C-alpha cells in the first residue's frame, strides 16, 4: 500500500485536516513497528535489569513496562508518520534525525551502565587504575538519572512526530 495514497488522491493537503484518515493509512505498519519496538525495548531493558536499583525489586518492572510502551508508541509513530510525510511531501528530514537521536538517547542508560563499555573506553584513553577505578562517576549517573534520558528520548520522538504531522497537514511549511 502506498503511504502517499491519501495525499495523491486528495491532491490538496493544505486543507487536509482529517488526522484519522492518516492513521488509517499507516495503521498496519504502525502496529508492526510498535510490536517490533516494544519487543526490542522490553528485551533490552529486561536484560540489563533497567532501573532495578533506582526503583527497587517491587517497582522496576513497571518502569521497564511503561518506558517500553511510551518509547515504542512514539518511535513507531515517528517512523510511520515520517515515512508517510516523506512520500507525501518531499523536503526536510529534521523529524527523522531527531528520531534517530532519540533512539540513541533511549539506549544510553541501559547499555552503558553496569557494562564494561565505559570502563573499556576509560582504560583505552587513560590506562588502568586511577580514572578507570572511578568509572562509576559516569555509570552511576546514567543509572540514577535514567528516567531523564527516557524523558529526553520521548521528547525528541514527540518532536519528530509533531514535525511529521505538521508537514502532512501543511506541505508548504518549512518544517
Amino acid at each position, binding site marked *: 500500500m502506498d503511504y502517499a495514497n491519501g495525499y495523491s488522491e486528495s491532491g490538496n493537503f493544505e486543507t487536509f485536516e482529517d488526522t484519522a484518515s492518516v492513521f488509517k493509512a499507516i495503521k498496519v505498519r504502525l502496529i508492526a513497528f510498535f510490536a517490533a519496538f516494544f519487543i526490542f525495548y522490553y528485551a533490552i531493558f529486561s536484560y540489563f535489569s533497567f532501573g532495578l536499583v533506582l526503583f527497587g525489586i517491587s517497582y522496576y518492572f513497571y518502569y521497564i513496562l511503561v518506558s517500553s510502551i511510551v518509547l515504542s508508541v512514539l518511535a513507531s509513530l515517528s517512523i510511520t508518520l515520517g515515512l508517510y510525510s516523506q512520500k507525501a511531501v518531499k523536503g526536510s528530514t529534521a523529524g527523522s534525525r531527531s528520531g534517530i537521536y532519540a533512539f540513541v538517547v533511549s539506549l544510553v542508560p541501559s547499555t552503558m551502565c553496569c*557494562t564494561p563499555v565505559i570502563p573499556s573506553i576509560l582504560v583505552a584513553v587513560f590506562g588502568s587504575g586511577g580514572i578507570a577505578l572511578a568509572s562509576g562517576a559516569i555509570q*552511576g549517573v546514567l543509572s540514577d538519572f535514567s528516567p531523564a534520558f527516557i524523558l529526553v528520548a520521548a521528547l525528541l520522538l514527540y518532536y519528530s512526530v509533531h514535525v511529521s504531522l505538521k508537514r502532512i497537514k501543511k506541505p508548504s511549511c518549512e518544517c
Partner: protein
Amino acid sequence: MQKRKMTYVVVGILVVIALVYFFGIDNSSGASQSFMPPVGAKAPNHSFIYASNGTVANVSSLGGKPVLLWFVATWCSGCAVGNEMLNDNISYFKNKGVDVIEVELYRDLGYSGAPISSFVKEYAPNVTSYSNFRSAISGYNLSLAYDKDGYLDIYYLIGPNGKILYENDGSLAATLKELKSKVNSL
C-alpha cells in the same frame, strides 16, 4: 551532506551496539581478561573491611576454605540481580564449603550508592543468616589488584591454598552455572 550525516549516525549506532555486544554480554566462557590476575597465580594479598563490624582483614587470612570473592558497586543493577541469584544459591555454597565475600569496590567506583550492608539486605535478605557469607568494603589496593580496569560484577574463586582457581569478568548472575560447575569439580 545530509546522507553523510545520517551515515555517521547509523555507523555510530552500530559501533555502540557492537561495543555492548562485545563487552557487555556475559562472558560465560570464563576466559580471564588481561587486567585480572591469572588463574593459578597466588591471590594478591590486600586488605578490606568487613561491613558488619569494621574489622580489617586481608586476602591471605581467608585460607583454609575455598572463597568466592565477588566485586560489586551498590548502584549497579546487574550486581543487584547477582544478589538475588546469590540469595537463592547461598545454601549451595554453604553445602559445598565455599565462603562468599561480597566486596564493594573502592569508593563504589567513584559514585556513591547505598552502603553494602543495605544493598545486600535489599536484594539478598537471606544470605546474612548464613555463616559462609560476609559483605566487605575494598581498599584502593585490593580494587587495583583485582579489578584495575574498573569492571563491575567480577569474581574470583580462591582455593584453600590461596591460589586463584577460577575467575570471570562476566556478571555473577549470568555465569553462575559456570561457577557452580567449577565448584562441583573441587
